[in-house]
C-alpha cells in the first residue's frame, strides 16, 4: 500500500483532527441516542399513565351514567305514573341525559322531547333484553354523535342518550400534553369518537383511525410504541381497549415524536453547533501545534541542507520549546561549530599560517586528523623549501665569494709577481734612465691598482686571517683616506670557531655599513666591534651620523641592507638595524 507523503504539519493536523472528530462524534452520538431514548421512555411512561388515567375516567364516567340509568330504570318500574309525569321533566335536571325513552311492561312508551319511535327502534334493534348496552349513535346527516345506554328487562326498557360532551371533557383535558398531545376514543370500526385535536372542525366519526396502536388495542393489547398516527405523523402513542357492555372502544393517547424529542433535538442541534465550534478550535489547535512542531524541524532541515551545500550558518539555531528538537538543535550547533573551527583551520593553513592549531574533535575525526597531517606536511615542505632556498643562496654566495677569492688571488699572486719581475728586468736592462724611471713608475701604479682591485674583490687578509684582522686592515685604510674616527675592537677568540663563510659575511656587512656611513651619514665617528662567545659571534656597528629612514632605504636602494640580512639569514643568524640618531647595526651569527 502506498502511503502518500504529506508534510509533517499536515500529518499532525489531520491526525489530531481525526482523533478529535472521532471522539466528539462518538461521544455525541452516544449521548444523543441515550438521551433520546431516555426522553422517549419518559414520554412513553407519561403517555401510558395518562392513557390509563383517561381510561379510568371514561370507565368511571360511563359507569356513573349506567348507575344513574339503572337507578332511573328501577324507580320507573315502581312508580310509572309519577315518573311519567315528573321523571323526564324534573329528573332531567338531575341527570345528564339528553333524551330518554321508557317502555313499560304494558308496551307503553314514555319519552322525552326530541325522540322519535324510529330512533328508539333503531337503538332497540341493536340491544338485547336483560342486558344493559352502551352504544353509539352516529347520525348520517353530519350531526354530532351521541351515545346511548339501553337498560332492558324482558318487557321493559329504558334508553338514555347522551351527547359526547362528557367524554370530550375527559379527552380534551390536556394538561401536560404540550402542543400535540391528545387523547381520543375510537370505535371498534376505527372511527374517531371524540374530536381530533388536529381536525377540530371535522366530525369525529369521519376521521378514520387505521394505526398500529389502534389495531394492537383492538386485539386486546395494551402498551405504548412509536408509530405514525392517523395523520401519518410519527407519534408516541399509548393504547388500550375499553370494554363496554356489548361494545369495545379503544382509547389512544398520543404525542408527536417531534414534540416529545424537541428538547433533545434542540440539545442535539446545540451539540452539533458546539461540536463544529470545537472541531474548528481543534483544527486550529492541531495546526498550531503541528506548526510549532514542524517549524523547528523545517528550520533544522534548512540548516542541514545548507550544511550539505557547504555553507556554514552564521548564527546559532534558536532554542526550541520541544526538548528533543532542542537537543537536535544543540547537536547541530555543535556540528556547525566543529565544522567552523575545522574550516577556519583549513583556511588558515590555506593562507599559509602554519602556527594555526586544531584539536581534533575525537579520535575518529578523520577530516581533522587529515588537516593536521596536511599542515604538518606543508610545514615540512615549507621547511624543506626554505632549507633548499637557504642552501641555494648559500651555494650562490659561497660560489661567488670563492670565485672572487680565486680572481683576487690570481690577480694578486699571478700578475703581481710578473709585474715585479718586469720591474727587475727593467733595472738590469740597457734603456735610458728617464725611460726606465717612467716605466718603473707605470709598473708601480699598475701594481697598486692590482692590489686595490684584488683587495676589493676579496682582501687576502680576510681569507688568510679572518674578519677580525681584515676589519683591522679596513679600519686602517679608512683612517688613512678619510677624517673619520673609527674605533674598532676585535674580540674574536685566538682560536676562533667562526667559519670562513661567516667570516666573509661579517666582513661584507661591515663593508656595507661603512660604505653607507661614508656615502650618506655625514658621520664623524664609527664604533665597531666583533665579539666571540662560545655559541655566537656578535658584530656591533654604530655611527653618529644623521641616520636614515629604514623603510625608504629598503624601498629605494636597500640592496645593501637586504643583502646583509640575507647573508646573515643564510647562516642562521639575525640582524638588527636601528636608525634614528645615527645608525646601529647588530648581527649575531651562531658558531658551530
Amino acid at each position, binding site marked *: 500500500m502506498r502511503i502518500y507523503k504529506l508534510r509533517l504539519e499536515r500529518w499532525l493536523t489531520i491526525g489530531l483532527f481525526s482523533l478529535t472528530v472521532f471522539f466528539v462524534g462518538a461521544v455525541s452520538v452516544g449521548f444523543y441516542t441515550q438521551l433520546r431514548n431516555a426522553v422517549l421512555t419518559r414520554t412513553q411512561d407519561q403517555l401510558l399513565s395518562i392513557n390509563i388515567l383517561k381510561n379510568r375516567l371514561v370507565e368511571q364516567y360511563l359507569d356513573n351514567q349506567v348507575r344513574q340509568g339503572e337507578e332511573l330504570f328501577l324507580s320507573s318500574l315502581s312508580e310509572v305514573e309519577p315518573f311519567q309525569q315528573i321523571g323526564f321533566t324534573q329528573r332531567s335536571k338531575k341527570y345528564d341525559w339528553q333524551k330518554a325513552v321508557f317502555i313499560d311492561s304494558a308496551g307503553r312508551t314514555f319519552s322525552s322531547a326530541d325522540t322519535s319511535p324510529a330512533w328508539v327502534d333503531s337503538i332497540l334493534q341493536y340491544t338485547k333484553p336483560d342486558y344493559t348496552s352502551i352504544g353509539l349513535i352516529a347520525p348520517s346527516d353530519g350531526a354530532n354523535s351521541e351515545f346511548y345506554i339501553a337498560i332492558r328487562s324482558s318487557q321493559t326498557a329504558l334508553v338514555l342518550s347522551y351527547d359526547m360532551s362528557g367524554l370530550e371533557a375527559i379527552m380534551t383535558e390536556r394538561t401536560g400534553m404540550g402542543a400535540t398531545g391528545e387523547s381520543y376514543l375510537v370505535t371498534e370500526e376505527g372511527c374517531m369518537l371524540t374530536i381530533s385535536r388536529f381536525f377540530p372542525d371535522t366530525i369525529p366519526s369521519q376521521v378514520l383511525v387505521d394505526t398500529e396502536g389502534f389495531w394492537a388495542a383492538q386485539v386486546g393489547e395494551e402498551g405504548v410504541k412509536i408509530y405514525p398516527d392517523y395523520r401519518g405523523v410519527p407519534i408516541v402513542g399509548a393504547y388500550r381497549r375499553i370494554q363496554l357492555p356489548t361494545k369495545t372502544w379503544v382509547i389512544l393517547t398520543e404525542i408527536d415524536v417531534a414534540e416529545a424529542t424537541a428538547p433533545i433535538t434542540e440539545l442535539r442541534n446545540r451539540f452539533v453547533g458546539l461540536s463544529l465550534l470545537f472541531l474548528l478550535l481543534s483544527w486550529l489547535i492541531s495546526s498550531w501545534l503541528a506548526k510549532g512542531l514542524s517549524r523547528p524541524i523545517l528550520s533544522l532541515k534548512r540548516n542541514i541542507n545548507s550544511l550539505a551545500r557547504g555553507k556554514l550558518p552564521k548564527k546559532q539555531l534558536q532554542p526550541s520549546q520541544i526538548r528533543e528538537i532542542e537537543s537536535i538543535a544543540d547537536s547541530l550547533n555543535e556540528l556547525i561549530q566543529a565544522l567552523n573551527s575545522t574550516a577556519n583551520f583549513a583556511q588558515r593553513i590555506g593562507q599559509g599560517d602554519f602556527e594555526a592549531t586544531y584539536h581534533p574533535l575525537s579520535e575518529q575525526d578523520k577530516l581533522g586528523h587529515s588537516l593536521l597531517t596536511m599542515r604538518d606536511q606543508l610545514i615540512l615542505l615549507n621547511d624543506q623549501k626554505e632549507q633548499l632556498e637557504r642552501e641555494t643562496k648559500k651555494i650562490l654566495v659561497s660560489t661567488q665569494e670563492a670565485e672572487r677569492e680565486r680572481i683576487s*688571488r690570481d690577480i*694578486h*699572486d699571478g700578475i*703581481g*709577481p*710578473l*709585474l*715585479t*719581475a*718586469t*720591474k*727587475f*728586468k727593467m*733595472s*738590469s736592462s740597457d734603456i735610458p734612465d728617464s725611460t726606465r724611471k717612467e716605466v718603473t713608475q707605470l*709598473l*708601480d701604479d699598475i*701594481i697598486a691598482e692590482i*692590489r686595490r682591485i684584488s683587495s676589493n674583490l676579496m*682582501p*687576502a*687578509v680576510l681569507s*688568510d*686571517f679572518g674578519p677580525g*684582522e*681584515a676589519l*683591522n*686592515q679596513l679600519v*686602517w685604510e679608512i683612517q688613512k683616506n678619510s677624517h673619520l674616527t673609527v*674605533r*674598532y*675592537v676585535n*674580540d674574536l*677568540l*685566538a682560536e676562533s670557531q667562526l667559519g670562513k663563510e661567516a667570516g666573509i659575511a661579517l666582513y661584507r656587512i661591515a663593508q656595507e655599513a661603512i660604505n653607507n656611513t661614508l656615502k650618506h651619514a655625514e658621520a664623524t665617528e664609527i*664604533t*665597531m*666591534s666583533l*665579539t666571540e*662567545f*662560545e655559541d655566537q659571534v*656578535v658584530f*656591533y656597528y654604530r655611527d653618529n651620523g644623521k641616520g636614515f629612514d629604514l623603510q625608504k632605504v629598503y624601498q629605494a636602494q636597500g640592496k645593501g641592507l637586504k643583502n646583509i640580512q640575507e647573508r646573515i639569514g643564510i647562516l642562521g643568524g639575525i640582524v638588527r638595524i636601528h636608525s634614528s640618531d645615527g645608525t*646601529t647595526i*647588530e648581527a649575531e651569527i651562531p658558531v658551530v
Partner: protein
Amino acid sequence: MNKINIVVADDHQLFRDGLKAMLQAWGQVNIVGEASHGSVLLTVLASQTPDIVLLDISMPQGSGIDLLPTIKQRFPNVKCIMLTMHEDVQYVLRSLKQGADGYLLKDAAEEELKTAIREVYEGNKYFKNKISDMIVANLSGARAPETLLSEREIQIIRLVAEGKITKEIADQLYVSVRTIETHRSRIMKKLGVSNTAEMIQMAYKKKLIG
C-alpha cells in the same frame, strides 16, 4: 767581504729570474739555490746552507709563513726575509711572530731590497718603515694566556665593580648593550654566581681583580 749566500723561494719562474738577474748584477750575493714551493725549498736547504732565504708568502703548496717554524727549527742559522706582494700589516705581524727576520714587498725599490739583505745578514731585523711603526702597538696587545675568564671579561667585571652601568660599559668597549649583557651572564655562569654582587665578590676572591 764575503758574498752572501742566498736561496730564492718563489713560485714564479719569471720573478725568480728577474730577481736573480738583479742580485747577480749587484755582485755582493751568491744565488746558491732556488725553489718553486715549500718542499723543494726544504730539500734545497738540506744540501745548501745559505745565509738568507728570500721567501714568498703565497705559494701553491702552503704559505711561506707556515714554513717559517720548520725552517727555523731545522736550520737555525738560516735567516728568512719575506718577499711578498702582501702589504697588509697582518702578514707582517704573523711573519714576525713565526720568526721571520725581515719583510719586504716585491715591488720595493731595488735599494731597499739590498738594504734589507745586508741588514738581516748582519743580524738585524728588517721591516718596511710604515709597517714597523704599527708593529709595536700590535705586539703590546698580544693576548694574555688563557685563564678562567678572558681578558675582556675581567675588564667588564672591573668596570662593573667601578659602578659603571651596562650602557657606559658598552660605549667604552665599542659593543652593544646586549653584548655586555651576554658577557655578564657568561661571567656569572663561569663563576657560578647568580647576581652582580656575588660576581664582584667572587672576582675579588679569585684575585681576578684587585
